[in-house]
């Protein structure tokens, strides 16, 4: 998938403002960004639902606009608004979609099982829980075994357990060599799954790299914390290698750029029991890059 200098405006609003990126076959690519950053518009242009004002898009070697039926057979899209056929059961919905792709009912049953919804086959789509709807939406996107998969916030309404199951499912898809483009608000998810992520803000890409490189580029301090009674802030500031110390939520937090040295020194002072270390995460990188940083 190749995007070159793509622009799209709605009236005065520049939803997508000069985006260029390249996603390789077999890659697990994340698009992160706050609401209104232009993620959805970008994906709608890539799948051919909207025409870019300017710039070129090539998906699997062809242009998606205008509607290209041959291309549509090779891509699968899951959207946030779960679109299901009215008043049908889960399996009836999937069988209808299967038929629209020219597939038999076995494709629907397989997709249902893959999403772990076999037990809910006979439940009406309007009676499914939020998480079940989300999984049915993913099953709908995967029914025709697409090569390129777009997932828009696939785990938004899922509880942690189901979320992890879905991660396994997504990893398996990638293992089959399929390309996945994934938008999410869950930074831990992007960190755990994506080969590379693009961070969008205000219709532009503000960073594009692997999660590891983005975090390293932050050059953020490591934080050590101990329960507040064990060490005073004053003493903590004097610890070897610690740049800054403060108290927060019942813990004394020490910021350091030399975590090894500081940890040894803290160990000598209080013992290492209950000492927690926290390094920068993709979330820190994200907050800094999107300019929505709330903490120092």
């Amino acid at each position, binding site marked *: 998938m190749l995007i070159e200098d793509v622009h799209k405006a709605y009236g005065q609003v520049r939803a997508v403002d000069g985006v260029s990126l390249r996603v390789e076959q077999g890659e697990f690519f994340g698009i992160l960004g706050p609401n209104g950053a232009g993620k959805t518009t970008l994906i709608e242009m890539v799948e051919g*639902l909207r025409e870019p004002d300017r710039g070129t898009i090539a998906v699997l070697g062809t242009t998606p606009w205008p509607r290209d*039926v041959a291309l*549509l057979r090779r891509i699968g*899209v899951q959207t946030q608004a779960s*679109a299901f*056929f009215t*008043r049908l059961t889960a399996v009836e919905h999937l*069988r209808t979609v299967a*038929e629209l792709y*020219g597939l038999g009912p076995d494709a629907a049953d397989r997709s249902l099982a893959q999403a772990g919804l076999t037990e809910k086959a006979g439940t009406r789509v309007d009676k499914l829980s939020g998480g079940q709807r989300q999984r049915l939406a993913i099953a709908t996107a995967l029914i025709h075994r697409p090569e390129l998969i777009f997932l828009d916030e696939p785990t938004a309404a899922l509880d942690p357990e189901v979320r992890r199951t879905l991660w396994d499912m997504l990893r398996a898809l990638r293992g089959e060599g399929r390309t996945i483009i994934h938008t999410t608000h869950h930074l831990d998810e992007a960190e755990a799954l994506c080969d590379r992520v693009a961070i969008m803000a205000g219709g532009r890409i503000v960073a594009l790299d692997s999660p590891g490189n983005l975090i390293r580029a932050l050059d953020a301090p490591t934080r050590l914390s101990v329960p507040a009674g064990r060490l005073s802030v004053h003493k903590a500031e004097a610890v070897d290698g610690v740049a800054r110390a403060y108290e927060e939520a019942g813990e004394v937090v020490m910021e350091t750029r030399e975590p090894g040295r500081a940890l040894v020194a803290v160990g000598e002072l209080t013992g290492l029991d209950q000492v927690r270390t926290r390094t920068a995460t993709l979330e820190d990188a994200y907050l800094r890059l999107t300019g929505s940083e709330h903490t120092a």
Partner: protein
Amino acid sequence: MSTYTALAKANYKAYTRDVTTMFFTFAFPLIFLVVFGLIFSGQRVTKGGLPYINYTAPGVLSWGVGNAALFGVAFTMMHWRRDDILRLIWRTPTPLSSVLVSRYAIALGVGLVQAVLFTAVALLPSFGLHLSGGWPTGLPVLLLGVTAFMAVGLVVGSLADTPEAVAAIANCVMIPMAFLSGAFYPITLMPHWLQDVSHVLPLRYFNDGLLNAFSGQGGWGDFGINCGGLVVFTVIFGAIATKTFRWSNGR
């Protein structure tokens, strides 16, 4: 299995599982038929003319069928667009014609069932309808009527983005038309200028066509005018519908 049968099945299940729609499609017009039938029982519109039931039955039928075709299609289009079902279909290799033809098949089926049901009730001794031998000319009229009102429904369904808007627009179209076209009130009893005005309304042709079929009135000329009128409305609203159709409620 083609995309057309898949959508027709999905439509059919959605339709038959919706109690409210079933009520407004089949029971609601029947209430009008019963009320009008009982009020005007045994009366004739003009001295020596046709019994009232010969006006009431085709009137309620044409209005009921037109109403169901318009509302049904408009609601489906609005819902499918609002709930992104049209987008889901768009993403599959389904042609737009399958979406429309499958919905058309449902509308025709509904119209046919309504026609059988309402006619059967009107034929009961307490209502006293006698069908003329010319009733089969009502079938092409029924088909063209469903088509014309479905075309109007497509336009309404594209203009309206909420159920409230569909109901408001469709009611504004259908309720005045019920009276002005002679469906609820015999056209011959209306002032002449209103009778002339009614020729710009599709229900006038639909109602006249069914009235003639039920009572064996009018010749092939009238039949041609009524069918032609419905075709003209289909073409006009069909053309508007192709201009206003949207796959999604985009900005």
